[in-house]
Structure formats: C-alpha cells, structure tokens
C-alpha cells in the first residue's frame, strides 16, 4: 500500500460516459489482485485539491510487462468528470493497492455477474485465471448495447459472455439475472461473484440463496480514505458493521444486510 503519483499514459473513451485510463506503475501492475482498488485524486493540484477527497476505483486490467494498469471510469459526478479530462502525462496522486480480493475456488464453476460499470473488477479476475484450467463465465447486464463496455476484452480471453440489455439491443432482453437463473438451474455448485447496482445485487443474492451457491459481492459506498482511517465506509453485515475498505470491498453476499448498504 503506497501513496504515490502515477503518470496517465493512455486514455480511451468507450462510449458517452465510460473511459479507460491507463497509468504507469510497476508495483501496481505486478501486485494488484482481483477485487482490489485504489483511491485516486480527482484533482492533480496536491496543495489545494477540489474536490478534496480521493475516489475509489477497482483495478481493471494490469500489464506487468509494460508496467501499466488500467481503470474503468464511468462519469457520474464532478470527480469522475474531472478525472476523464486529465491530460496524457498528468501525474495523478493515488493510494493503493487497497482492500481484500475475490477468493478463487477453482474446483467450482466461477460465475461473474456484472451490471453496468460493475464490470470493472472482473477483467483482472479473468486475466489472472486465463491460461489456467478453470474458465469463469460472465453474466453482463446493461441498459443497452452501447453500455456493454469492454466485452471484447473478455472475449479475447475466451471468457464465455452471457449478455443482457434492458432494451434488447444486444443479448437477452431484460435483466441479466434471467439468463443467470437458467444457468444456475443447469449448473450445480457455482461460485457467484457480483458487482453492480443494488437491484441486481439483491436479485443475485436471492438466486444464490435459492441454489445454495457461494456468493462474493464487491460493494460500492462512499469512502473517505480507503485505508481504515475515517471509519466512513461501514456496510452492515450479519456480524455487525464492517469497513468496506479493509474487510471488503469483497464480502460474503450471504452475510450482507441490504438495508445497511449505503445509498449511492
């Protein structure tokens, strides 16, 4: 875990509000684990930043050879708006790697379930697993075809992708939990890993309970620091409040109390 500035080396706009930012940092590129994240400044002016707080972002992909890693950013407010405007070469303050990781159980069928920008933590997981025997499958839902960003990246790793769009412009029409339900019918002993909007996570949890499958959820919530200093990122579990930045962001989905998740 370090506080450092990484240079922005490449930027790719994927659609109206989704961007891939590539940074150079040897250590992150070689040590980041699936599920981990970084706190990234939304303003490169270190003396007087505005907004002041850093923002949490999952590591998307790593490229150890070229000492690069990438972040998938969806613009939702001021901070993300400013971040996607960073010029190439900008030295961006950040803290990482932070948080725990997805537990891998190769003897199970790993099933990644992503809604929208919830896709972010799964590419690194697919990268780490590719080449190894076990292939995870991806269930990926979004509003419309254009919102299914980085699908090619997954396909190029030969990940089996089951897509769903609410408007039916690509894959099954409707929510991704419908094809997922059929899949769980057909396959016993799956290990579910989910990240996305509340409604989706709630539905996935119901399915996991129904099929008694293990469930790992990467949660989103406001984070003040990312390293356990502010106690601001509590999520409610059956064992009480837990700090998402230290005990998470990946939690046992069966232990999360939904009403206890922050409303972001």
């Amino acid at each position, binding site marked *: *875990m*370090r*506080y450092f500035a990484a240079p922005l080396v490449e930027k790719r706009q994927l659609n109206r509000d989704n961007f891939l930012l590539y940074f150079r940092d040897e250590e992150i590129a070689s040590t980041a684990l699936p599920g981990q994240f970084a706190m990234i*400044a939304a303003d490169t002016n*270190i*003396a*007087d*930043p*505005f*907004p*002041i*707080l*850093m923002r949490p972002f999952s590591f998307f992909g790593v490229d150890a050879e070229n000492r690069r890693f990438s972040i998938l950013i969806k613009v939702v407010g001021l901070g993300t708006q400013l971040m996607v405007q960073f010029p190439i070469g900008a030295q961006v303050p950040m*803290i990482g790697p932070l948080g725990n990781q997805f537990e891998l159980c190769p003897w199970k069928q790993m099933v990644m379930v992503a809604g929208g920008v919830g896709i972010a933590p799964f590419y690194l997981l697919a990268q780490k697993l590719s080449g190894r025997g076990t292939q995870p499958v991806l269930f990926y839902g979004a509003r419309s075809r254009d919102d299914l960003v980085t699908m090619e990246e997954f396909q190029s790793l030969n990940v089996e992708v089951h897509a769903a769009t609410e408007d039916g412009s690509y894959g099954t029409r409707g929510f991704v939990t419908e094809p997922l339900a059929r899949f769980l019918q057909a396959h016993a002993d799956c290990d579910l890993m989910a990240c996305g909007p509340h409604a989706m996570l709630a539905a996935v949890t119901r399915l996991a309970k129904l099929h008694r499958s293990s469930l790992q959820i990467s949660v989103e*919530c*406001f984070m*003040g*620091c990312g*390293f*356990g*200093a*502010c*106690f*601001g*990122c*509590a*999520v*409610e579990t059956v064992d*009480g*409040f837990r700090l998402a930045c230290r005990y998470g962001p990946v939690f046992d989905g069966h232990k999360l109390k939904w009403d*206890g*998740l*922050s*409303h*972001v």
Partner: protein
Amino acid sequence: MGYRMFNPKISIAGKDFANPIWTASGTFAYGTEFEPFLDLNRVGAVIVKGLSLQPREGNPPNRIYETASGMLNSIGLQNVGMVNFVEEKLPRLKRYRTQVIANIFGKTEEEYVQIARYLDDNADIAGIELNISCPNVKEGGIEFGSKPELTYRVVASVRRAATRLPLYVKLSPNVTDIVIVARACEEGGADAVTLINTLVGMAIDVDEQRPVLSTVFGGLSGPAVKPIALRMVYQVSKALRIPVVGIGGISRWQDAVEFFLAGASAIQVGTANFYKPNAVIEILDGLIQYCERKQITSMQGLTGALKVPIEVPEIPAGG
C-alpha cells in the same frame, strides 16, 4: 530539512513534544494505519479516535459525504473501547517516538470520569482530550460543550479523577461565545483547550429527496471551516492563559502558520490526512522552512506573533 536555526520542540503541561504538528482524533484512527505513508516518529502527537467505556459499533451508512471543500461525517464514534485501546492499540503505537493523547467521550459525567480514571491509572500517554461535543443524555441531549456550567462540571470532575495525565478539553464551535466555554475549561482545571470540533451540517440527495446521512445531521470539517476555526482560536488564545491547540481545515503548512500566528501552541491535522496521508510531514517541513526564512528559532517566536493594528471589535457587523 535541517534544524539549524529553528527548533520545533514544544512542551505542554510538563510533556515534551518533538514538534507542534499533531493529528486530529477520528482522522488518524489508532496511528499505525498510517505506517505505509509516513514516519510516525516525526509526528508531534497522535490523538487517537475517540474512546468510550465500551466498544461502539457506530452509525449505519451513509456515514460520510463530501461538500464544497469539506466533508460531513456521522461515524457515531465507532471505537474499540478504552480497554482494547490500552491493551491492543496503544502498545503498537508506543513503538514510535510520537506522543499519544487519548480522545475520550461519555454520555454522562460519570462515564467521562470512569474513562479518564482508567487511562490515568493504566495508560502511558501524554494526555487525555475530552470531547465535550457529545449530547448529554441526562441533560436531555444538550452538549457538554454548549453550556458553560455543564462544561465546568465535567472538566472539574475529570480533573479530580485523573490527576496524573495532562487534561485537554476539545471545544465545540457550535456555540454563541466559545470564549465563555473555554474559560469554564480553564477554571475547571484543564491544562489546555483544543479547537475546533466539527460544525453541525446536513446534506440532501435531491433525487431521492432524502438526507444523505443516516443520522440526517453530521459534522462538517475540512478547508471550508478553516476561517471559522482560525477566528475562534484567535479569540480563545487572547482570552485564556492555558495553551490553545488549533484545529480546523489545516491541509498546508501555510494554514498551520496562520493558526500559530493566531495564538495556537500546537495544531492538529484532520480531514487532510484522508487525501494527503503524509500531510503532517509536509506541513512540518514547510513550517521549518518558513521559520528559518523568517529567522524564527523556536515556537515561542511564532505562537501569537500576529500583528494586529487595530482594536478588535467585540463582534463584527455582518456584511
């Protein structure tokens, strides 16, 4: 960074501090969380997260929200409790040369007294900091820090109970006249006052039409509050004989110098620790360079050195 001309060392209530740049309670956890970012030996003092008699879970989410140059928090004083602190957290922090001050709070006067006595008997630390910005259940929720009589009582009782450790009292800014409350602390036997705690604020999610924080209200901190904090530190240090520790929106060395000029003997860095985890070191280095530039050799030469040309008005006319 040489100490050639300027020596940042200070001492308060018989305890020596390598320098006057400290960390604010609740923004530095139990200290060791910052090991990856800075050399804790260079931190003048660590004021740990507020301690209670028993461990506390804290409030449900959302607990924090960012505002313009500030943040709101309602952590709900989550903490490991005084015993776990002394037995688990403190020994790790004591491996460093930094001084440790325990921030404490209670729901009743008795609770304050019990915690203070326990620490006085069991903790090898440089002081106790009373957080009196907490609602007093017995008095129907009025803050200990908003009624001078209440303040005096709780400070005096803790003083009697904890005779060994220096006693700091941390003031709430949510009052009409902070000087009156500060005087009550001095008369109650406090060795120093620290200010400011957070200002009570609120934020609303206009889409959901709901308060953002689960507790509706939260405490405002960060650069946004600095001008208010600086004014109060100036007022209090003019009025009191005991040392004043300045807090509020300090994120750069220039901010720290402003507080020293206004009369602070030491300062605490709070919210800035979250987004500049090495802020205290940057501020200390900047302070040293400033003092050497200005040929200031010790903190005595800086604290309260503000040149005020005029007779300061009791209360300024707004606008």
